[in-house]
C-alpha cells in the first residue's frame, strides 16, 4: 500500500455530510437527498480535475459515480472516513471509464477528439450525454415499473404494488435490481 495519503478532503463539512449519509442509510430520504446533492458537487470537482482532457465525460461520470455510490451504499463502514470511501469509488469508476475508452479507441481512430476545439468547455453542471431515461426504458417491466412508480413518481412500495399488480417485496426487489442493471448497462455489461 504505497498509495499517497489523499490530501483533498471533502471540504469543510465532511462530518456533517457523513451525518447526512448515516441518516440516509437509516432510511431518512430528505437527509439522503441532501447528501447526494452535496456529493454530486464534490464529485464534479474531483472528476473534473482528473478528467481535464475529457471535459465532456465529466457529467456522465458524476452520474455513474452517484449511481455506484447509491448501489453500494451498504459497503460504507461507519467508522471509516467518508472521503476515503467516496474517492475510492470515484477513482474506480474513473479507471473503469478510461479502460472502456482505451478498448473502444483500439477499434476506432484514437486521435480524433483529443484537441477538438468545438468540444464544449464545462461550466457549472454540464449536461450529461448519456440519457438515463433512455436506459431506464430498456429495463424489463418488473424492474422498470417499480422504478418509475417508486423512484420517479414517489409512490410508496404499497402503492406501487397496487398499481403494478406486483407484490410489495417484488416491487422493492425490482427497484434494487433495476438500479444495478442500470449501472451494468452504463459500463456495457448488460
Amino acid at each position, binding site marked *: 500500500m504505497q498509495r499517497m495519503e489523499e490530501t483533498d478532503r471533502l471540504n469543510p463539512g465532511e462530518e456533517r455530510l457523513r451525518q447526512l449519509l448515516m441518516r440516509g442509510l437509516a432510511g431518512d430520504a430528505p437527509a*439522503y437527498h441532501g447528501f447526494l446533492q452535496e456529493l454530486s458537487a464534490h464529485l464534479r470537482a474531483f472528476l473534473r480535475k482528473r478528467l481535464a482532457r475529457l471535459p465532456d465525460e465529466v457529467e456522465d461520470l458524476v452520474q455513474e459515480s452517484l449511481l455506484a455510490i447509491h448501489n453500494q451504499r451498504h459497503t460504507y463502514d461507519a467508522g471509516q472516513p467518508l472521503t476515503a470511501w467516496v474517492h475510492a469509488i470515484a477513482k474506480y469508476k474513473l479507471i473503469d471509464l478510461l479502460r472502456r475508452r482505451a478498448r473502444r479507441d483500439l477499434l476506432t481512430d484514437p486521435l480524433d477528439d483529443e484537441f477538438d476545439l468545438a468540444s464544449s468547455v464545462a461550466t457549472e453542471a454540464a449536461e450529461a450525454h448519456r440519457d438515463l431515461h433512455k436506459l431506464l426504458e430498456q429495463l424489463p417491466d418488473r424492474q422498470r415499473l417499480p422504478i418509475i412508480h417508486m423512484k420517479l413518481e414517489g409512490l410508496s412500495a404499497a402503492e406501487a404494488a397496487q398499481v403494478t399488480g406486483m407484490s410489495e417485496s417484488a416491487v422493492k426487489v425490482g427497484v434494487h435490481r433495476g438500479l444495478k442493471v442500470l449501472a451494468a448497462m452504463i459500463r456495457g455489461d448488460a
Partner: protein
Amino acid sequence: MRTDDLVAMLATGVEAVAPGAAMRRCAMALGWGVLGAAALMVVLLEVRHDLAAAVLLPMFWIKLAFVAGLVAASLLAVLRLSRPGLRLAWVPGALAAPVLAMWLLAGSVLMRADAPQRVQMFFGETWASCPFLVALLSAPAFVALLWAMRGLAPTRLRLAGAAAGFLSGAIGALVYSLHCPEMEAPFLGFWYLAGMLIPTAVGALLGPRLLRW
C-alpha cells in the same frame, strides 16, 4: 437526465440499509464454504482414522494453527478488499507470519535430519495428491466468497479475487487437515501452501471479470 433529477430519483423512497449487511454476507459465504468443504471431505475422502491419537501430538495442533492463522489473515484481507477505501495496512504481514513460522520450523527439522529422512519429510506419502485435494475442498468456499464479494464493492479486482481464492484455499486446507496424515513441517510449508495457491491463482485470473461493478 439531469444530475439533479438523478439525485432526486435515487433519494426518493430510499430504503433503510440493515447495519452490518456486508459482514453478514461474508459470514454466510464463510459458513457455506466450510460446510461444503466438510461435506466433500466426508463423502470423497473421510476423516483420518487415527484422529483420536493425532490430537495428542503437538504437531497436529501446529498444523491446525498454521492453517487457521492463514484463514484469519486472509479473511481480514477479503473483508478489507471488499469495501472501497479500506487499506490492507498490516494484513500482508499477518498473512506472511504463519508461512514464515512454518518455514523456520521446516528449516530447523531439516537441518537436524539426515538425507533420506529429509526427502521423506518433504514428500511424505501424499505429496502428489495433497495440493489438488486442498484445491478441490476449497471449491465451495471459492464460489461462496466470490458471490459474497460480487454483492460488495471491491475496487482492486485482481487482488480481491486472489484474496478470496486464498481464503477459500485456507478453508479447504483446514478441512483437509482433518483427513491428511502428514505431520512434517517441510511437507506442510510447501504442499499445503501449493494447494492454497491454486484457488488463489484462479481468483486472480477471474477477479477482474467476475467482480466488476
